[in-house]
């Protein structure tokens, strides 16, 4: 399993999750976990996804999600899970 962490941060608006999930479904990316909070009107979401079914490379995926974020007006980051595991788990 290729775990990728997707984070979405930005001003809250209608349909953020829908747009992101539609894209993920199109790319055959399975969502394993979602957590989401709103802090001071700012939308903050983290998804743990499995990208092993996705045909696209990490760089391409990352660029496309970034572009999607710009369209919606939020910042979307797409990072390999290892960076978080390394930093926060001994």
């Amino acid at each position, binding site marked *: 399993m290729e775990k990728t962490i997707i*984070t979405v941060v930005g001003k809250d608006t209608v349909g953020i999750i829908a747009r992101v999930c539609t894209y993920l479904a199109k790319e055959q990316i399975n969502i394993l976990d979602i957590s989401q909070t709103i802090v001071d009107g700012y939308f903050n979401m*983290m998804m743990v996804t499995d990208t092993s079914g996705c045909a696209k490379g990490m760089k391409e995926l990352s660029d496309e999600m970034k572009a999607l974020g710009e369209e919606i007006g939020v910042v979307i980051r797409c990072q*390999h899970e290892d960076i978080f595991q390394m930093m*926060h788990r001994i």
Partner: protein
Amino acid sequence: MINIFEVSETNQMIEQENLDVRTITMGISLLDCIDDNLENVRNRVYDKITRMARDLVKTGEDISAEYGIPIVNKRISITPAALVGGAACKSPEDFVLLAQTLDQAAKEVGVNFIGGYSALVSKGMTKADEFLIRSIPQALAATDRVCSSVNLGSTKTGINMDAVRLMGDIVLETAKATADKDSLGCAKLVVFCNAPDDNPFMAGAFHGVTEADAIINVGVSGPGVVKHALTQVRDANFEVLCETIKKTAFKITRVGQLVAREAARRLDIPFGIIDLSLAPTPAVGDSVAEILEEIGLEMAGAPGTTAALAMLNDQVKKGGIMASSYVGGLSGAFIPVSEDQGMIDAVNAGALTLEKLEAMTCVCSVGLDMIAIPGDTKATTIAGLIADEMAIGMVNQKTTAVRVIPVIGKGVGETVEFGGLLGYAPIMPVNTFGCERFVNRGGRIPAPVHSFKN
């Protein structure tokens, strides 16, 4: 499973606190390029560097994109050039040709610096070492990306004072040879005592002769992250302070370890070491001086600075060592003046002097770094500065270095701009009392006794 708070913490470090991996440095042995014909050496050196490092920059960029962590520099270090060119180069001019080959190879593979235009002369100089040293001013003027370093002493051998004296001249000549660029050449020239073989940071990186054919070394950074963490424990006692620094250093280093392992795997080159240095940049908030201020000093240079820095340096190592299997290089807080906005401010405010910086180098890596001094400083005075710093390294069994820039045509009170990561610096006054008779004596300072440590 990783939770949203941990993810946010990491991303905040990257986006707001300037967390980055400062450099992936590929060490390449050029010992197999040695020949007595200079053309052959140049061809082999060019071929080997461009072959080994062909994918270095791209790999760095790929890793950066996948993990979302900036990797600022991709660099190369090579076997000390005095050894590589020793059999072929019959004059300083020959060595300049070799430097130009290194520069071309660096440009071809797209790295921003190549280090290892170096000579190791801690006890004595061979003819080749001396040719290389004498070629440094021209070599640095004729190239853009070549960095040069000279090891002048060690705890085991003492200090080669002949070489120290010579380097006083060479630093000044390098300044003159690059006077049209505010003596920028001196920013790419550093002298060491106890130089490490596996340092990934410029200008002092070289690939030691005890190393494998090729190796990946990684330098991490993150003064901004440490500073931010310390703002959360303002006015807490030293125990809490130390714990916070250690935990933060652990997290920073783990990112370096991940990047190093991944780069080594993708390039199929063994992983060497992680260098646990807090390396500042001129960016606001990415400053070691600001950490010292957060610890409780009005400005870097105030009484207490040396103690605060000693504590900071030690805690960074304690946290970092647990995060990586192999730690090496310089591993400590850097205190370059021109590359650290807080240090620049402290100098401008009159809080930080050259003498205080010298004291600070006793407790942290790496030495008098990126300090602009008046262009009319005498070569013997520069040699004296170097000798002092070498002595600190020799006696304390640590690496020390000197990278001072005598800015030709400028004096105290003026500012010099180097641009980019090298930053800008106010020109600092140097003690003008002479040391000619001392540095002109010739010979060596013997190695110190390793007992009776007081």
